[in-house]
Structures are given as C-alpha cells and as structure tokens.
C-alpha cells in the first residue's frame, strides 16, 4: 500500500482558454489534513476539481491510492468532493442528503446501495436537531455542516473540500477542522482555506498555490519560518508567538504609509 492516497504529476489545466494550472506536482498522504492556501484566482479550486476527477487535466496524471488509471466508480469511491458553497437544488432534508452521500460510485441506472459507513456524520457534525429539516431552510452555517456531513458520508479515504468552513462562525470553524483532524486516519482531507492561522493550527501540511503552480508544500512550522506566504500574498505578516504556535497578523504594506 502506497503512502500517498493521491498524487498529482505535472498537472496543467485550462479554464475558458486561460491557463489556471501549470505543471503542478502534489501528493496527498494517507492520514493527513492538507490545507491548500493561496490568493484568489491562484487555481486552488481547479486543483481540487482535477484531484476529484471533475475536471480532466489538459496534461499530467492523477494517481489514486497508488494505482494509475481508475474508472469513474472507483474514483468516486476514493475521493469525495465538496464544491464551494455547495447546496442541493431540490428540497432535500439533511437526512436525505446524507443518505444520498452514502451512495457513491453506484451504477448509473438503478438504485445504488449505500456504502458501509463507520460513523454517523449527522451526529459527528451536531446535526441531529436539524436532521429532518430541509437543507435550504437552514442557516448558512448549518447548511455548510450538512454539506460536510454529505461529503463525509460516502466513507471515501480522501476528501477534497473547497472552502468548507467559509460560512461558519469561529467556533464552528474550529469544530469542523477538529473533526476533520480527528477523522484523518480514516479519511485524509485536502481543504482549501483562507484563514492562514487555522491552516497553521490544524493542517499537517500546507500547500501554497500561486499563479497556477504549487510553490511550496510543507508542515506549518517550516512554512511559517520563511517568507513564502508574505511573497505569495504580497503582504507583510507579523509573527506572534502564542501558546505552542505562531499567529500571523497582516501588517499594512511597508514603505507606502509613510510611518
């Protein structure tokens, strides 16, 4: 069994004729929580879509669980993809949505049987009070948790989640990331995050994407030492040591304010 659950080699992708990914190399290890950070438009979402098999890459290859070409169903059973701002079109209840999430990679026609799930995502995400409510009627935070529950329900060894906590309050953000961290032995996660401090605190490794390339992929304590983040975001971060970690605080650009 390979150590990598997924690896991307020389990935290039276009979106509407524009190059959004160019020669990306990235491996996701089993049992890790990998945060993907980078400025807007860097290609993070496209990277996740390529990883999830939604967008076929123009060049390069995706290897899942050590195997080369995989069929659609096998891919579906390996990577669960949670799109940005995910919401079902029809008025499904939370329980129905999660039940649907269990049926990954089933036959196209006919009723797919649920994959065995070792844990109850509704309970894990504290959704019991809303289980019979319609997803569209929930608040933004509740909806985001329902979406995460749906993505986790399939029991895949890998989750690719695009900004899954953007709509959550700080407490819920922490709770969700802690859940993913606790589950990482069962399901490795690749999570696009905008909050660098949460990435530093919860991720095992952080991949930095800028201008369609993966320019770094390293554990948080390595990444925080250098100036990669400052360069990528075009900002100067103040490093504040706090408890056992480091907090980043963006400062106004130096030299322009005349201080």
């Amino acid at each position, binding site marked *: 069994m390979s150590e990598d659950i997924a690896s991307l080699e020389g990935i290039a992708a276009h979106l509407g004729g524009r190059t959004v990914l160019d020669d990306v190399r990235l491996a996701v290890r089993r049992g890790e929580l990998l945060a993907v950070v980078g400025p807007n438009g860097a290609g993070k979402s496209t990277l996740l*879509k390529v990883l*999830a*098999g*939604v967008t076929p890459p123009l060049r390069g290859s995706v290897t899942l669980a050590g195997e080369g070409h995989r069929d*659609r*169903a096998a*891919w*579906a*059973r390996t*990577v*669960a*993809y*949670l*799109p940005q701002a*995910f919401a*079902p*079109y*029809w*008025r*499904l*209840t939370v329980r*129905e949505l999660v039940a*649907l999430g269990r*049926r*990954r*990679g*089933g*036959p*196209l*026609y*006919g*009723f*797919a049987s649920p994959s065995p799930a070792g844990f109850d995502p509704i309970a894990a995400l504290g959704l019991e009070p809303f289980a019979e409510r319609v997803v569209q009627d929930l608040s933004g935070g509740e909806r985001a948790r329902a979406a995460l529950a*749906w993505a986790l329900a*399939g029991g895949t060894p890998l989750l690719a989640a695009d900004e899954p906590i953007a709509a959550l309050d700080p407490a819920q953000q922490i709770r969700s990331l802690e859940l993913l961290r606790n589950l990482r032995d069962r399901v490795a996660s690749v999570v696009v995050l905008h909050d660098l401090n949460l990435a530093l605190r919860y991720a095992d490794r952080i991949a930095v994407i800028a201008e369609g390339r993966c320019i770094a992929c390293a554990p948080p304590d390595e990444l925080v030492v250098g100036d990669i983040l400052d360069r990528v975001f075009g900002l100067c971060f103040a490093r504040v040591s706090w408890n056992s970690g480091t907090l980043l605080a963006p400062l106004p650009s130096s030299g322009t304010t005349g201080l």
Partner: protein
Amino acid sequence: MTFVRILCAAGLLGAALGAGLCLGSEPLSPGDLVAALGGDDVFARLLRDWRLPRVLAAGLIGALLGVSGTMFQGVFRNPLAEPFLLGSAPGAALGATVAILLPLPLPPLVALPAFAFCGAFGATLLVLGLARALGVREIAGLLLAGVAVSAFLAATRSFLMLSLSDETIGLQVVLSWTMGGVQTPFWSELAGFAALAAVGLALAFGCAHGLDLLGLGEDAAVNMGLDLRRFTLGVLTLASALVALAVTWGGTIGFIGLIVPYLARLWGGARHSISMPLAAMIGAATMMLLDGVARAALPPAEIPVGLLTALLGAPFFLVILAKWSRR
C-alpha cells in the same frame, strides 16, 4: 412513511379511476356505476369497452407526462422545465402530423409513435443546441429557445396541414391532436400502449439515482460517479420517448408535466426514487379526472382535455415561477 404515501397515492388512483368511469356526458353515481357495469345492455358495454379503456388510456398518458416532466426538471434542475414548453411535445405533434398526413408504408400504430419520438427528440436537441449556441445557460433562456422552436414547429405543422389538407379523416385527427384529446383505444391497442408505457416507466424509475445526483450540481454528480454526457443524453432520449408515447394517444396536452412533478415533490420529498412513482400516480389520477371533466363539462359534446390542462396549468406555471424567482 414512504409506504403510506404510496398507499395514499394508490387510493387516489383508484378514486380517480372510479370518478373517470362515472364522468361523461351521461354522468353516473358510484352506485349506478356498479349496477350498470354488471348489466348486459348497450350502456354497460359502453362503460366496459369504451369508457374504461378511455379512462385507462388517460391514466397512462398522465403517468407518462408526469414522469417525463420529472425527468426534464431533474436534468435541468429546475421546476419550470416542462415537455410542452421545451419543445418536445410540439415536436412530437409535428411528427404525428407527418405520420398521419403523409402516405407511409407503415401501419399507423408503428408510424405514429416512431415519428412522434423523432419529433420530440429532435425538438429537444434543437432547443438545447440553440441554447448552447447562443450561450444561454439559465432556464429562462432555455424556455425562450423552447418558445421560438415551438412557434417554428407549430408553423411547420400548420403549413403541412394546409398543403396536405383533404376532406379526409386525417385533418380531423390532426386537429384533435393539436388541441389535446385522449384517443380511445381498443383493448388490444391499450395492451400494446400499456406494455410500452410500462417499459418506459420502469426505465425512467431506473434513472432516479442519477437524477438525485444531478440535483447536487454537475460537479458533485460527476464526482459521485455520474457520466454527465451519457446520462443527460440517456434521460433526454427516454423522456422524449415517454412524451412521444403520450402524444400518440393524447395529442399535445400541456402543463401536466409541470404541475404533477411539483405536487409529487411537495408531497413525497425531493428524492426521485419516490417522487417519480408518485408523479406517475398523481399524473394518472389527474388525467383520469380531467379527461372525465372534459367529457362531462359540456354535454353532449366533449371539450379537448388540452384546453382544461392549459386553463389550470398556466396560472400554476406563474405560481411556480414566482416561488422560484424569489429563491
């Protein structure tokens, strides 16, 4: 819960069947119906061999329209998608017109559904192709493309009717098709119709899971294992076939494919594995009832049931439009 809903729908179906049998230009009370069915006079024969197959045909048409509407809505992820509005029903009517008016070396029972299918499928592809070529992605644009294509198809059909018009039965049949009226089949014809409908509906129910996945968005559906192109094409083909079959026996009956899926979702929830069978049953019940009303409203004449569904359906469409645009 699901079981109870299906049971309720089955009860509704039975009640609609009874009502359909009671309604007509000679209405009956349920008690009279039971007594009359047992008799051996002309009226009993009318009930058994004319009104009963007619009611059953109306039910099948309703089931087909309800399920095809659910499929169109599922594929387009929009409650406003409807076979009548997306051009497939007008296309089927054009195909049927060609089959009726042109001398073809085929028996009508084969030529009619085959041509209706070609028309329905061709029109759907035309609408989709136009919408794509014009860069339209929203349902509003799709419906407008449907309006344009429908107008074109209707004009073509009118031209065919004018140029091929003759004092023969053909034109009368085409006219009744245009307004939407259930044709009464002989028992043997009904058996063939029912067999085709059963196969079509079974295949349609098989698409339930894929439609559920599509309802999560295209990216999520692809990630969960859906072959988007093949599935979409397959569903549109099948839905066109169901529309063609319904049009063959009922003409262009609008809005059933809009109202019925909406009611089915309201009642049974959004899962297609439930909403599709419910749509079939609600559609069947609705059509049996409306066809009965069409036969009973202006005795001794019969009004085209397509007029009734349009009268009921157009306001319904506006209600759904209002709800949907407030989303």
